[in-house]
């Protein structure tokens, strides 16, 4: 029986069911730890009118930036965008909507979405444009905003290693938003560098338990570096 075997072998299968108008949560910070190939598959499918929830929107020609080329994105929910010219152009022409959300609030909204917490309070954004129209409340003499959870029809995630049950670990700072997105997708798809045997990962050291994961695919990755900074070796 299939049991918990979540491995799929084609990117077409990995993104099966993605439809126009859906909301997609994407892991990654800048170009680090982004689900490169799952994004390419969304481009290949030409799915349109998407709402993308991701800290950033890639760069021209790489990462989520490629979805702008054919105007597949209707709305971005992000903390920092505009590392690419096409994004700026579409935004100014009103072809793209952006909901800017503080980075920590964005992370917590995804976590809350996965954890069955419909809303929470945070001091972040009080008295700023982010707080406009939002309910505020005083706790212990301080003012807080109420922020609502985010969930997605799909979550696309980049892991390092996973077993076929969907247990995932991330490599270094490529973790970032990935485990949060993973919890909050109705269908969570994780692409990894390596699929390992089911007993290879230490149970106490798994970043994303398999219960959150619907599909696993092994891919190969360019891992483009956004700002290559090095020191001299002498």
């Amino acid at each position: 029986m299939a049991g918990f075997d979540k491995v799929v072998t084609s990117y077409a299968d990995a993104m099966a069911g993605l439809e126009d108008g859906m909301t997609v949560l994407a892991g990654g910070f800048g170009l680090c730890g982004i689900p490169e190939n799952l994004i390419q598959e969304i481009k290949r499918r030409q799915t349109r009118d998407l709402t993308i929830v991701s800290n950033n929107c890639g760069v021209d020609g790489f990462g989520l930036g490629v979805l702008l080329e054919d105007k597949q994105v209707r709305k971005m929910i992000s903390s920092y965008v505009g590392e690419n010219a096409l994004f700026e152009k579409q935004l100014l022409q009103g072809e793209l909507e952006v909901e800017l959300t503080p980075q920590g609030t964005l992370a917590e909204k995804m976590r809350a979405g996965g954890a069955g917490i419909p809303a929470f309070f945070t001091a972040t954004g009080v008295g700023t444009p982010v707080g406009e129209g939002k309910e505020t409340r005083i706790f212990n003499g301080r003012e807080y905003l109420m922020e609502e959870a985010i969930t997605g029809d799909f979550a696309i995630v980049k892991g390092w290693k996973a077993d076929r049950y969907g247990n995932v670990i991330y490599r270094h700072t490529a973790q970032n938003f990935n485990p949060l997105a993973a919890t909050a997708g109705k269908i969570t798809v994780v692409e990894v560098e390596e699929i390992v045997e089911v007993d290879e990962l230490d149970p106490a050291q798994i970043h994303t338990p398999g219960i959150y994961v619907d599909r696993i695919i092994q891919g190969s990755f360019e891992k483009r570096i956004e700002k290559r900074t090095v020191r001299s070796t002498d």
Partner: protein
Amino acid sequence: MALTREQMAQRVAREMQDGFYVNLGIGIPTLVANFIPEGMEVMLQSENGLLGMGEFPTEETVDADMINAGKQTVTAVKGASIFSSAESFAMIRGGHVDLTVLGAFEVDVNGNIASWMIPNKLVKGMGGAMDLVAGADNIIVTMTHASKSGESKLLTECALPLTGKGCIKKVLTDLAWLEIEEGAFILKERAPGVSIEEIQEKTQGKLIVPDHVPEMVFA
């Protein structure tokens, strides 16, 4: 003389204490790491999920999976930890970071800060800045005292949309070290050779000048 960027970083570094967890923003704040007194240990938090950021890697050790919040390739120090963005901002929002240093466009006498948005210019986003200013008790803002055209950035009331409300108590400009208390900037130190008159002239918000305002000393 107005402070150089390096001198500003040097002055901020004097606020460090041994054992501090510190978040440094992009620009001048990043330079602070170069001036931490010898023998003092501080640990740098990078909000993309790294506590214990180290120096840049060598050509040989560059790793696309190891970056900081400025998206630069970095290394991790011994004793570092790496975690999700939710955990990272739990630390920040929960007040566990001892010191945050960041830049700004404007600060006002009520501790408001504007640093992320200039209306009618393209807005790229606040990133983690709003969480950082809301989460930290101890924040130092670094910026030039006035714009290139001479307009003060230390105001009675911020004109630009805020990043945070009532959260700033310490400001280092290229001219002065100031603390915000009860609706005023208190002039605590001035840059070497900078007159109190110049600082007064370039400070639009209420400025309190104590009897003695020492000059900063740089080695």
